[in-house]
């Protein structure tokens, strides 16, 4: 199939209307931006259903949409573990156990919580690594989007990069976090309506769910696995050799489910910031749960297209071809190629708009999180404290411009030196992996100290890099993939398995060392200092008189049961 398509006036019109609306929302909100709290924390006044959707929309960036579809094609149904084992339990944990401390402590950011609970150096380490990481993340996703537009539509790389960056810049500059959150909700609905017809058309084409499974048997056999390896989530997780992911249930549950997902959803300010913008404690705790509802069903929107794409390769009569990269499929092109394959003029415009919407929600999330951490945790703490709030509002606005400019630079860097980006992402993975241990101990063990947290975090990062240095995934060719210390003592069946185990080792090292160092050092914070920050020193939240569907525990049980039912259906 040649990638023939025609973008006509209707497609461009749809994109323009969408651009008009996102900018319009920013413009309307401009007059409400009176203080740094309005700009950076959305005035802590947004209703829960809005932030709940923003909570998952900001994670539904272009890299996730493209990446999840790619995994769906590459690994099949097992990709759902990122949702049902990964995200959902972590979101429940955040709502029930962690939100009371984030929201109740009046900290304005995740690093600030670390300062209140531990000390300045722990905050500084987290704030700086997070700031650099978010800016590079937004640069990498800008690069990815502009590359797609260039290879598929022939749009100029610079043009799509600048247009998308400027639009995000303008609406965040005008309306701050509120504008980002409101637009994320709008973008969420657009992503759903833009991609759902793709799934429906694909399923019709391939003969429904049964047809899809039959074709996937052929895919599995062709790759040397048992017939169901692409269409089951758990059944082939008994050993690393029986599924294309190269992981077993232990790596999934502990590595992905516990360490990586809890680390991401519970400590990453990018998502936690949305929940902190709630108008009340009850709202803040409900937000991750409101997000978890739709989140559970996102696999049908983002993973199934990948499975359809790989299944279509067994049906030459469908006239669909997945582009090649070297001698394997270029999985990252699944979504755009499907869009072009199935969508006629009109719908194609909407599909591309949805893709851009997902990119913008991800990028705006990075920019707003960067703004807050930079303004409060770096600028106000280390560069210029004790200024008026007007001053910090101005700084926050200028930081938006600065952040977007650095992202653009990072995008060009990604274009010039691909390896530098791989390398940076690796470093961030090392820094992130142990973070959950620090928070877990900080929130539930009042004896853990500042020195314990800081050096525990550093040793967790070291453990991650050493583990990565002495292991490698099968078939690794560059040192970025592992084994950079020269000797490889263990070879994992896949890169994913290696990542899971790197996280497990990092977490364990951080946990053990934080405990040992804490016991050896003096606790400088008094019980009074830690009130509202540690579980045992915080008064229980009373929820008598709140109807059950507004209480986090019953809601969590409901969501947990639904996720288990889904896992059983797609066993």
């Amino acid at each position, binding site marked *: 199939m040649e990638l023939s398509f025609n973008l006509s006036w209707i497609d461009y019109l*749809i994109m323009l209307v969408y651009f008009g609306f996102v900018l319009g929302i920013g413009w309307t909100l401009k007059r409400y931006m009176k203080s740094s709290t309005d700009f950076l924390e959305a005035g802590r006044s947004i209703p829960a259903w809005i932030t709940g959707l923003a909570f998952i929309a900001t994670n539904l960036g272009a890299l996730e949409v493209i990446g999840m579809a790619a995994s769906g094609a590459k690994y099949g149904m097992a990709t759902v573990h990122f949702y049902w084992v990964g995200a959902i339990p972590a979101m429940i944990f955040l709502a029930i156990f962690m939100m009371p401390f984030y929201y109740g402590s009046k900290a304005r950011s995740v690093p600030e919580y670390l300062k209140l609970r531990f000390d300045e150096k722990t905050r500084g380490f987290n704030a700086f690594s997070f700031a650099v990481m978010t800016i590079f993340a937004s640069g990498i996703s800008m690069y990815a989007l502009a590359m797609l537009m260039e290879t598929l539509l022939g749009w100029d790389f610079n043009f799509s990069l600048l247009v998308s960056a400027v639009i995000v810049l303008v609406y965040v500059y005008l309306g701050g976090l509120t504008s980002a959150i409101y637009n994320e909700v709008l973008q969420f609905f657009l992503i759903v309506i833009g991609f759902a017809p793709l799934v429906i058309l694909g399923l019709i084409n391939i003969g429904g769910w049964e047809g899809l499974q039959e074709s996937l048997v052929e895919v599995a056999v062709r790759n040397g696995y048992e017939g169901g390896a692409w269409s089951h989530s758990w059944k082939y997780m008994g050993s690393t050799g029986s599924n294309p992911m190269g992981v077993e249930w232990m790596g999934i549950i502990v590595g992905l489910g516990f360490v990586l997902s809890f680390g991401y959803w519970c400590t990453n300010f990018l998502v936690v910031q949305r929940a902190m913008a709630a108008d009340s404690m009850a709202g803040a705790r409900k937000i991750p749960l409101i997000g978890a509802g739709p989140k559970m069903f996102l696999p049908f929107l983002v993973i199934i297209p990948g499975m359809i794409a790989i299944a279509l390769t067994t049906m030459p009569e469908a006239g669909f071809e997945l582009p090649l990269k070297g001698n394997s499929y270029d999985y990252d092109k699944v979504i755009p190629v499907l869009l072009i394959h199935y969508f006629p003029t009109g719908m194609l415009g909407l599909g591309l708009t949805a893709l851009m919407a997902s990119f913008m929600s991800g990028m705006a999330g990075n920019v707003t999180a960067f703004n807050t951490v930079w303004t409060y945790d770096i600028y106000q703490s280390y560069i210029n404290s004790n200024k008026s709030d007007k001053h910090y509002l101005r700084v926050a606005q200028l930081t938006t411009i600065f952040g977007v400019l650095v992202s653009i630079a990072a995008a060009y860097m990604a274009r010039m030196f691909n390896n530098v980006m791989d390398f940076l992402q690796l470093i961030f993975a090392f820094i992130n992996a142990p973070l959950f241990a620090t928070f877990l101990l900080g929130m539930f063990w009042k004896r853990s100290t500042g020195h314990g947290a800081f050096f525990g975090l550093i040793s967790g990062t070291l453990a991650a890099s050493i583990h990565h240095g002495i292991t490698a995934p099968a078939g690794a060719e560059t040192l970025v993939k592992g084994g950079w210390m020269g000797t490889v003592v263990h070879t994992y069946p896949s890169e994913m398995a290696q990542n899971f185990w790197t996280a497990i080792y990092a977490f364990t090292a951080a946990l053990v060392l934080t405990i040992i160092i804490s016991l050896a050092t003096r606790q400088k914070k008094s019980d009074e200092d830690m009130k509202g920050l540690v579980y045992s020193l915080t008064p229980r939240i009373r929820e008598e008189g709140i109807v059950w569907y507004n209480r986090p525990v019953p809601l969590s049980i409901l969501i947990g049961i639904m996720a288990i039912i889904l896992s059983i259906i797609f066993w």
Partner: protein
Amino acid sequence: MGLDIKIPIGLLFTILGLLLAIYGLATSGDAELYRRSLDINVNLWTGLAMLAFGVFMLATSKLTSKKEE
């Protein structure tokens, strides 16, 4: 916050829904155009779905603002 997010979402979906549905109706005889979408007029159907959602959003936003008054 002074802005009800349902209004811009409702407006955007109504406008895009109308655009797509009308375009779908106008091109409904174009078999060549809809061959790639398996002879289904996705423009029309998606447009109608968006329109319905947009109108629903606008209707509920109006209702809530009446209650507050």
